[in-house]
């Protein structure tokens, strides 16, 4: 039997009468990068905070490395949390922030400072040991927060929207860094985000949540290629969701093309907008029934036969690219 890093068994979180997390079950393999993804209010942060032990579980069980931790305090769960605001202690310098957990365990000063230096080096912040948090940029604060969490040698690192406070350029760099650390340390990372792009770039396992339930989980490729429902297809993006007599379908926008006449599946309408994206051009159409659809067309193909907003157009795709969806 393969032990999982984290196992949720019918976990429910109620706040008064509202149900934030509705009986979810999930198994996160060891040494994997798991992203909890969903719109705000979907229950992903509550789930993370219950795993961390900062939120009580109303019902169900949480197992970490095969140990039931449902009623254990945060420190005895083998988890470490990185907070969205980083929560670096403003009155301590970087080194003391990182050494904090060792100080609480009464590790001798020389020993804990040496360990803290080591972890600052791991996140490339060894040159900033004496700085106070207020003097660091957002990206630097995040690295220090990461070192402070990792020094507890957790089995599972929990990250609450870790990249949302960074500018787009830094976000991509930190993304690589997180993935590198996860591989090097060989522990499970559970990362909460509302950005599907972030989740796809990072995750080994992607868990899409909505309204307190898990809608789909799997590798990013499985989720993107075979979304199970309308909600997933819309939320993941890059799909056209269409109603057909035999139920809703999804077609990836990059598998659609503009065609004059065709006997393949197609919809017709008028061009609403043309957006140049470099290698690709996005052509948005409003179909005759009023649906919005789009095609991602390679730029060379588009400019061979360009269209303008207002032109009539037909969107076509191959029958094997039609993907059936559940009604939900």
């Amino acid at each position, binding site marked *: 039997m393969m032990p999982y890093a984290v196992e949720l068994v019918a976990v429910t979180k109620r706040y008064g009468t509202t149900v934030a997390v509705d009986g979810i079950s999930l198994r996160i393999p060891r040494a994997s990068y798991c992203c909890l993804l969903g719109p705000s209010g979907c229950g992903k942060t509550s789930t993370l905070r219950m795993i961390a032990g900062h939120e009580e579980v109303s019902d169900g069980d949480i197992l970490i490395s095969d140990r039931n931790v449902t009623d254990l305090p945060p420190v005895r769960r083998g988890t470490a949390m990185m907070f969205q605001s980083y929560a670096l*202690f403003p*009155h301590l310098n970087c080194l003391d922030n990182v050494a904090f957990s060792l100080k609480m365990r009464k590790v001798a000063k020389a020993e804990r400072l040496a360990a803290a230096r080591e972890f600052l080096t791991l996140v490339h912040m060894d040159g900033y040991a004496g700085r106070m948090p207020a003097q660091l940029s957002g990206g630097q604060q995040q690295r220090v927060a990461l070192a*402070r969490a990792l020094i507890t040698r957790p089995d599972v690192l929990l990250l609450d929207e870790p990249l949302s406070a960074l500018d787009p350029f830094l976000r991509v760099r930190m993304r690589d860094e997180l993935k590198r650390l996860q591989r090097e340390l060989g522990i499970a990372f559970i990362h909460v985000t509302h950005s599907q792009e972030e989740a796809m770039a990072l995750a080994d396992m992607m868990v899409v949540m909505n309204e307190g339930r898990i809608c789909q989980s799997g590798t990013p490729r499985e989720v993107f290629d075979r979304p199970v429902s309308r909600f997933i297809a819309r939320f993941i993006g890059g799909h056209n969701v269409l109603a057909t007599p035999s139920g809703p379908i999804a077609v990836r926008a990059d598998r659609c093309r503009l065609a004059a006449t065709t006997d393949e599946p197609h919809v017709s309408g008028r061009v609403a907008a043309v957006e140049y994206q470099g290698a690709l051009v996005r052509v948005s159409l409003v179909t005759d029934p009023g649906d919005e659809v789009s095609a991602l067309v390679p730029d060379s193909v588009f400019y061979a036969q360009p269209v303008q907003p207002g032109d009539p157009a037909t969107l076509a795709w191959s029958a094997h690219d039609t993907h059936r969806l559940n009604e939900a």
Partner: protein
Amino acid sequence: MIAAGARAAPGKRPWTFYVLGTVFGLYLSFLYGPMIVIYILSFQGPNGGVTFPMEGFSLVWFRNIFQVGQMGYIPATFERSVALALLVSALTTAMSVAAGFAFRRRFPGASLVFYLAVASLVMPSLLIGTGIGLEFRFLGWQTGLFTSALGAQLTWTLPFGMFAMFAIVNRFDRSYDEAASDLGASAWQRLRHVTLPILLPGIIGVAMGAFTLSYDEYARTTMTSGTQNTLPLEIYALISSATSPVLFAIGTLTTVVSFTVIGGTLWVIFRIQRRRASSRPA
């Protein structure tokens, strides 16, 4: 990073600027004018009176303060006032911090408890003082500075301290606490190493506020102080009995004390905050 230094040059100011500026100027002169007059007159020559003109300059009135005369002995009342203010400040701080933490969680009846606690702010001070004095007499207890007066002053300083602490605690980011427990701090370690240090500047502010409120409290203290006077009570007694520039000298001296306390506190808070924002070699 260097902040942009240049600001757009102000254009012509609207007429309201001058009206409001004048009002503010009048307010400042109303506030500080009389005090400045008192400070100047406290250096009145030995033969001068309580009004201008100055008959030379001297420190004789300051020396008078420290002489045991037919008036009360000012240094003793000053010591009493400071001792009482220190005690009031310590109690107010301890209770306000505890109350601030208690009110971080909503509990049943929280609003009622809150309004009961702060209600004494709106009750007339003299009535509260009189009430406490009567109560002591009714119970057959002797009123005194460190019993009835202490209690009477706390009815005044505690609501202020609690209001301030609620504001301070409200701004406290709870993820600091969660991070501390996540990193293995016990409840006590969390308080000692995270919560209190982060809140320290605010707590010092509460202590200072309580100290100054107590130091010049009159209305509640006058009916409860028993046989010994605090400094404000003594000064009030002097105003009605004696008229000499020695009153002004007392005024100047107590102002120096107040400003030293406030300035010293602000300096400490400033140092803490600058230390948090400045580099220390590792």
